[in-house]
């Protein structure tokens, strides 16, 4: 039972990171129907910036987390402006290829600047083990879960309560109608990229702290899994991305603990395929009827 609770906490830990990254995918998809393959690389750069600030500049912890988030928010906006905006009216697959191109570009840029060898991420948070009735939780795990939940709630409030948040929802619902209502669509899309990238960077920092490593291709696998989480929850739906992230994290941790480490990824994909076969728009997705 203790082992199970332990794994449950681990699952929450991994799941909250996936959820953070998945939000970026789902927001961008919701607003411009693009799978932003570069999101994994945004996450990777966020982790690298945190690594540099923590080791070379010795910044306080809050700055080590917040500054990379701001930098990556700006980077996300820049990526959208340079690579995706010219293609907004082009066929969707061309935009997808551009996203892949940006992803490869950023990956190789990181490879050039930081070299291929993994760097050891310093511990950002003071390490203490908290004992909760036989279950041992490290403070890093608690901080990871707490920070992710905090930012997710913040985002949710922002999207639901503020004027800009309403604009984001309006544009993802119907872009043309939003223009007619006087919403600045370009600025709203930039804002979406900024928020998604900031959360992605946070996810990257927490991921690198959890796995104690930063390396240029670190964004690929968690990026893919977070994207799967977004699809699982129903792409374009923010609570769906959070739910999907937690499910993927939980399934992965549980299979690793009880079934097999080598098959863990395969089981994640099998669950994804089964969910999509029975509910093609994801768990929280609504079925849209097809009209002639």
């Amino acid at each position, binding site marked *: 039972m203790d082992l199970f609770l332990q794994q449950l906490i681990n699952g929450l830990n991994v799941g909250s990171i996936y959820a953070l990254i998945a939000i970026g995918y789902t927001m961008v998809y919701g607003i411009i129907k693009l799978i932003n393959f570069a999101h994994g690389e945004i996450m990777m750069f966020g982790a690298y910036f945190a690594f540099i600030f923590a080791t070379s500049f010795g910044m306080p912890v809050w700055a080590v987390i917040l500054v990379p988030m701001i930098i990556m928010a700006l980077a996300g906006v820049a990526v959208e402006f340079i690579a995706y905006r010219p293609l907004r009216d082009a066929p969707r697959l061309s935009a997808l290829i551009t996203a892949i191109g940006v992803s490869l570009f950023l990956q190789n840029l990181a490879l050039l600047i930081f070299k291929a060898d993994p760097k050891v991420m310093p511990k950002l948070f003071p390490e203490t083990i908290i004992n909760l009735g036989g279950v041992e939780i490290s403070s890093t795990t608690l901080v990871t879960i707490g920070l992710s939940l905090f930012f997710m709630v913040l985002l949710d409030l922002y999207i639901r309560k503020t004027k800009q948040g309403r604009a984001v929802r309006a544009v993802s619902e119907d872009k043309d109608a939003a223009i007619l209502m006087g919403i600045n669509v370009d600025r709203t899309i930039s804002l979406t990229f900024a928020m998604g990238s900031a959360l992605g960077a946070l996810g990257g920092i927490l991921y690198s702290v959890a796995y104690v490593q930063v390396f240029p291709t670190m964004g690929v696998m968690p990026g893919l899994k977070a994207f799967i989480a977004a699809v699982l929850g129903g792409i374009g739906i923010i609570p769906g991305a959070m739910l999907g992230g937690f499910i993927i994290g939980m399934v992965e941790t549980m299979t690793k603990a009880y079934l097999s480490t080598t098959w863990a990824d395969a089981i994640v994909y099998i669950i*994804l395929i089964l969910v999509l076969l029975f509910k093609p728009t994801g768990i929280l997705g609504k079925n849209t009827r097809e009209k002639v």
Partner: protein
Amino acid sequence: MDKNKRKAYIINTISIISLYLVFFILIQTKVMNKYFMGIAIMTCIMIIMAMSLNIVAGFLGEMALGHAGFMAIGAYSSAYFSIALMDTGFPLPNIIVLILAMLVGGIVTGIMGFLIGTPTLRLRGDYLGIVTIGFSEIIRIFFINFEPTGGAAGLKGITKLVNFNNVYWITIVIIILIFTFGRSKQGRAIISIREDEIASEAAGIPTTRYKVLAFTVSSFFAGIGGALYAHYQAFVEPSKFGFMFSIEMFVIVVLGGLGSLTGSIVAAIVLTVLPEMLRGFAEYRLLVYSLALIVMMIFRPQGMLGRSEFSLTKFIESLILRKDIKNSIDGGETR
């Protein structure tokens, strides 16, 4: 057979043979060394892979991001078969073994494509893309854990049966087969689904059946590509068939133009040869490659040839008559 068609056949046959002769002379005079020959063989394999992916991505217009998985099935099944066949000691000429192995790889992959396609083709667009990624990753993880084919260490001891001579002719045959398929009744039905699924269903085309057919044919040829790859490298390992490899093939198809088979051929040649040419810059190589990709897509989002095919006959005609060269790129015509 009408006169134009015959003329086109003659011109294409002559150009195929003369291209082969050029390569033959280059190889005989040692201008083309082993390194260049390797690039040429890989280019041929990538042409097959890109064209087979184009059946689903271009003709059918669905996003299939798991082509590497099918290639893996073809590579492993054909290699397993050829090793077993060689072990029996039955005296067969190499080319026969290769053709049998290709057929086994193609058929096994085709069956897998059918089994995967039947339930998944109910999905659309990005969801289908994700499910195909999922299947291809499951296939890769399966081969990592499957001991009879060497597990993560890979399958060794495959006889190297592929050389430039046979892969060139095999590629030509497959190009002809896929072109013919594209213009057959089935191929046109598949294209009509891309154009408007509801309309084609209303016109009496069983859309689900043709979707599955496109998927099966595409995976059959992907299996053949995988078989050639296995018998060229003489070694297959699961890590080669990752997600990025599927993406690489998809990039070739989109860059060449979705639905344009000649575009796929040109893009496969460019994107296989270009990274090799840039090898001198070593670490800047992939940076340049990805930048080229972004710039290309921004300025020509429909790909090099769009949906049209390059026609050699028309190209020569326009050269002779000094007509606008652009006429040689025209819809619906074979090379």
